[in-house]
């Protein structure tokens, strides 16, 4: 477990360094994700303890957003004035984005004949034309 966490943190650290040194608009953790992904491809498999550490982190992913969300406290006065406009923009934009992305992906994607999640993957192959 300790080793797995160290590997994940090393990927993030390398990502932060690359991000800062290159001036890329990507944050360190996203570059770290690419580095870990590349090393999994090279190793051709997920080591057991890295898989376990990753699953532990990801199974509680939504908890990790709570502290930033509480930051709404700092913007109470601005948000009070603009609440209606902000709410309309956030709700409208988020739902339209999900609809457009899912619609396009469903039209073009290999799973477009799937009716249910997890239905037979064999029938979704070879129908690209």
């Amino acid at each position, binding site marked *: 477990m300790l080793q797995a966490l160290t590997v994940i943190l090393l990927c*993030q650290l390398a990502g932060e360094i690359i991000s800062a040194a290159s001036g890329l608009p990507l944050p360190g953790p996203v570059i770290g994700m690419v580095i870990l992904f590349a090393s999994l491809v090279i190793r051709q498999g*997920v080591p057991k303890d890295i898989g376990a550490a990753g699953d532990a982190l990801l199974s509680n992913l939504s908890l990790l957003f709570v502290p930033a969300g*509480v930051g709404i406290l700092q913007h109470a006065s601005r948000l009070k004035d603009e609440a209606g406009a902000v709410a309309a923009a956030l709700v409208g934009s988020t739902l339209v984005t999900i609809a457009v992305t899912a619609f396009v992906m469903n039209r073009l994607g290999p799973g477009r004949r799937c009716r249910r999640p997890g239905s037979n993957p064999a029938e979704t192959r070879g129908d690209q034309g």
Partner: protein
Amino acid sequence: MTPETLSDIWVYLAASPLLALTMTLVVYQAAQWLYGRAGRPALLNPVLVSVVCLVAILVATGTTYQTYFEGAQFIHFLLGPATVALAIPLYRQFEKVRRSALALIVSLLLGSLTAMGTALGIGYVMGLDHVSLVSLAPKSVTAPVAMGIAEKLGGLPSLTAVFVIVTGILGGSLGPLLLDRMKIGDPAARGFALGTASHGIGTARALQESEVAGAFSGLAMGLNALATAILLPLIWSFLG
């Protein structure tokens, strides 16, 4: 115990990170319990319920966000390693991802442009000022990237963080309902849409649906961060 000693204890505890950290964990787990107990209704999204409860506690006790964050930062910090760890479901689903590469690129570009365009459009029509508009535009992107973009274009990063979280909660709670209505059952399309529109919170929701949905969602989150970081400055300077 007299009220004075009680408030002394509060003052003592509030000065260390232990209280905020424990409070966040307890409130979140209570919110999760409630969510499961009530049959997972969209309105009782655990992030939303936790944020509302914690804000109420901070306001009631007169605690500042800075004091709270001294403890909560230990949870906040884990966002970085968790983002790195998204490589794992992505790797496990790599074969599926590779097969749909073209569909992914087209969906991503259209989704990313829709996210920025509709946020700016609706916000402008509703009369938001410049600072709010540019803080709002990257709202579909994972928090650290969105904050960086907003700062570069003259927005308020901490305001952007709030918009990002609210967008995540909206997408994570209402998104699956919308996708059900649209009769989209393909886990790849569901995950990719949730990740494009609502980053990590959408991805957390997608991971609950299936590992396939989670992998596509994590991928969409990373790609949309890249697309928005490149496209939004161009769009913004074009709108001038």
